[in-house]
């Protein structure tokens, strides 16, 4: 029999249903995996008691013959951006060290209601700002993957949902929550060879999720495969009156409607995504993806998204602008860190607290955001960026006239070594080049693992769909998954 820790959500579900193992055994298995994975620095807080309690509830419900929830008996990792009642939540920042929410985020509450347990809170880039996990105030997460060149250097799991990526790919958790503002689910998923799904903006409530950039932030699942993502997203999503931007729509039964036959579907290939200096392996993989989708019955069409090159600059104006305002609440007055030097007045306390509490990347973005919103610069930056955002959305709208879905690479490279891009924020920002446009347009998009590069590192392909067409994205992802036969996994070296 397959080891329990090799199982994903669907596997655990059927194993419990068939009586192969109990939910408690599942929880204990993963709790042991979590304990053994400390060198990867993926968890900021471990909550074995939470996972066990949920498992026991599942076993009890099963014994009583009750219908089990979608996530019954599945112990998951929770990105530390989700506020969890009674469990420390820091967004991997010193400014929130010691903060224990008195409330449960809607997404985590939905998952728990569906029967999921929580193994712990996952490390991440501080306030979800970063693409390598190196902006965490509590040390970076290390990817379970290593290059096959014998170098053994530590690699990034990507970011900002790097802890989530590491635990899912390292078989430390069957699934984990992520959040995606400009690619923070998809890029790490691609870097570690797992599936990550960012739904349409508004599918998942943002209530109780620590805000980075409100108009872009979306929660989504990170899991072993497409089916697991569909199951988990069904549990996470849903209308929430407490979030004014939440979509008041029923959650479709995505898993039940999974279908990898793409006959009649048109897949667009945006020419602007062929960027300079893209590694040959990624170009080749993209071509293979095209063939796989053709094989599934789809027609391939060339499309143009002419404003793509302005997406990244627009994103790095809009996201920091919103962040500069969203992070103003961390002021040392009510919770979290307070640095009150002797004789300090209010302004001194603000300065000292925020100086000590925020990491350099967070400060950089607060300063950029403050600058672009300032009198005299607002129109030149913020207003322009919003116009670009509209044009990007229109690009997609036009593309939908000739296709149903888009296929692109997820990231312009495979995982890089920790420390390799630290000195060059712009090079780091380029990681998001393929994921940012769909974030700006609020569209559903997924990364599926599709192959390995020359050094044995995973590469992902991205599928972008129309607003609300998660099903189309899932189906195309499934078609790739079935054909790519991606079974590679990291050797356990930790």
């Amino acid at each position: 029999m397959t080891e329990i820790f090799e199982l994903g959500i669907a596997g655990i579900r059927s194993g419990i249903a068939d009586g192969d193992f109990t939910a408690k055994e599942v929880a204990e298995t993963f709790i042991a995996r979590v304990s053994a994975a400390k060198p990867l620095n993926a968890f900021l807080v471990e909550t074995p008691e939470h996972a066990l309690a949920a498992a026991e509830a599942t076993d009890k419900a099963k014994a009583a013959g009750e219908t089990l929830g979608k996530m019954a008996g599945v112990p998951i990792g929770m990105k530390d951006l989700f506020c969890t009642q009674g469990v420390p939540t820091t967004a991997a920042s010193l400014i929130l060290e010691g903060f224990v929410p008195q409330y449960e985020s809607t997404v985590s509450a939905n998952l728990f209601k569906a029967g999921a347990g929580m193994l712990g809170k996952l490390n991440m880039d501080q306030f979800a700002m970063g693409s390598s996990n190196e902006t965490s105030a509590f040390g970076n997460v290390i990817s379970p993957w290593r290059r096959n060149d014998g170098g053994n250097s530590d690699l990034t799991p990507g970011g900002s949902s790097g802890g989530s990526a590491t635990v899912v790919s390292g078989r430390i958790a069957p699934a984990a929550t992520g959040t995606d503002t400009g690619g923070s689910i998809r890029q790490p998923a691609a870097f570690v060879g797992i599936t990550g799904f960012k739904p349409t903006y508004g599918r998942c409530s943002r209530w109780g999720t620590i805000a980075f950039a409100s108009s872009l932030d979306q929660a989504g699942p990170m899991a072993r495969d497409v089916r697991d993502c569909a199951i988990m997203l069904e549990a996470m999503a849903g209308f929430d009156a407490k979030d004014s931007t939440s979509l008041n729509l029923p959650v479709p039964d995505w898993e039940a409607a999974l279908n990898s036959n793409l006959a009649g579907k048109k897949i667009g290939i945006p020419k602007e995504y062929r960027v300079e200096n893209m590694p040959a392996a990624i170009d080749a993989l993209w071509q293979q993806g095209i063939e796989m989708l053709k094989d599934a019955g789809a027609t391939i069409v060339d499309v143009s998204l002419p404003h793509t090159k302005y997406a990244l600059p627009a994103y790095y104006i809009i996201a920091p602008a919103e962040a500069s305002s969203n992070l103003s609440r961390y002021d040392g007055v009510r919770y979290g860190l307070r640095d009150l030097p002797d004789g300090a007045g209010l302004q001194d306390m603000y300065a000292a607290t925020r100086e000590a509490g925020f990491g350099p990347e967070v400060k950089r973005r607060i300063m950029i955001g403050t600058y672009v919103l300032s009198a005299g610069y607002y129109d030149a930056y913020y207003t322009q960026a919003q116009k670009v955002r509209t044009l990007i959305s229109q690009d997609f709208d036009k593309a939908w006239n000739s296709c149903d879905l888009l296929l692109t690479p997820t990231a312009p490279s495979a995982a890089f070594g920790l420390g390799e891009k630290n000195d060059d924020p712009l090079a780091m920002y380029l990681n998001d080049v393929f994921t940012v446009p769909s974030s700006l347009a609020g569209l559903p998009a997924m990364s599926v693992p599709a192959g390995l590069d020359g050094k044995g590192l995973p590469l992902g392909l991205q599928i972008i769909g129309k607003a609300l067409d998660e099903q189309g994205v899932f189906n195309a992802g499934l078609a790739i998954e079935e054909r790519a036969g991606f079974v590679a996994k990291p050797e356990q070296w930790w």
Partner: protein
Amino acid sequence: MVEMTESTYRIQGGTGEWEVVIGLEVHAQITSESKLFSGASTEFGAEPNTQVSLVDAAMPGMLPTLNAECVRQAVRTGLAINAQINKYSRFDRKNYFYADLPQGYQISQLYHPIVGEGVIQISLDEKDPDAHGKAIGVERIHIEQDAGKLMHDQHPTMSYVDLNRCGVALMEIVSKPDMTSPKEAAAYVRKLRSILRYVGSCDGNMEQGSMRADVNVSVRKPGGELGTRTETKNVNSMRFIQAVIEYEAQRQVDLIEDGGTVVQETRLFDPDRNETRSMRSKEDAHDYRYFPDPDLLPLELEDDFIFDCKASLPELPDEKRARYKNVLGLSAYNAAVLTAEHETALWFEQLLDISDEPEKIASSAANWVTSELFGALNRLGVGIENSPVTPAQAAELLGLVADGTISGKIAKQVFEIMLETGDGAKKIVEEQGLVQESDTGAIEAVIAEVMAANADKVAQYRDGKDKLFGFFVGQTMKAMQGKANPQVVNELLKKSLG
């Protein structure tokens, strides 16, 4: 219908006369059970920090959700001043750091306010409002969050913060710079307050901070270019608003005439010293970095919603005043006084409701309310909403006068007893035997006695000393303990004295 009048308010400077230009930004707390973006209570006077939701305290991950009742009240207010209602409006963040502002930004409406231009008719003469009216333009009304309150007297070195008020809904009602004297400014605030209270969108309670004004003042030579303005923040009484204008106008004139220039700045009013002083200049002004709040969708109003808001408005003070004058036939003064406060008008109308023909009793009822009732309430120091005499009781009293049961003089006496005992007028009149005597026989008998006892005066009267008529009236009334119908007494006396 309303003529504009030239302001005559002038500052006399060394270089001649100066004119004052005034604009007001009134912050009015919207009457609603809960806050603008959270479910916390808005009740005044609770223990510090007992009415604070997770949203108000800006806990991580918390999101605002708009309170529809606050939107409704703002739209109703806009409709009440005949303003344009913007079917599309949006919320913006006004970013600044302060300990009473947990989010680090105030949610307000800069670029797209919910209410556009409107107008408020003010009157400078209570006695004849129509003859001395003026139209003051309203630039816009937007809705925004209030901040919390810092308390500096709780600890020797620390300040405390009370977030109860934080997030409470305000309307900011921005006037055009259409006022030119302290009196006009006061009349504007008084009228605005009256409208808000009629609409029920704000209780207008200035002592509790439900209404306060930022006062913009500049001076210029009459008819000249507008001068640089100063803004004095958070002025919370009608008297202080006038004081600020007087002080600021004089200060600016003195400054300019001494060769200085007025700087655009924010000032604070010190009521103890009756002066304003600089809070921060334009150079130190915050850059608020306004931008659309991404947590909230644009607010789009349906025609039906606006129609329902309109239908829910009561008759407003201007319409009511016109009706009292033109339909009920009240004097301009009575119509103005009775409609200034909604409660007074409601009380008066309940009084009229007793009659099938309200027009017939309206004038006498209005006179009675503005003289007798107001006098009594003044003496007791209570508002009309707490009047010890109900409209129904008053109607009973006035009914006794109208049907001749008691005289107006006795009515005053009865009213005093009603105030003291709470008894009904009929009961008092019956128990104390105050029914007016109109029986000619009884009165003639008394007149005969009075004439007999004063034969000398009768002779004098008949010799042409007309002034003695009042003496006979007084003697007759006295003999009848005031209960005689004075009209009948007059007629019979004339006849008897020949």
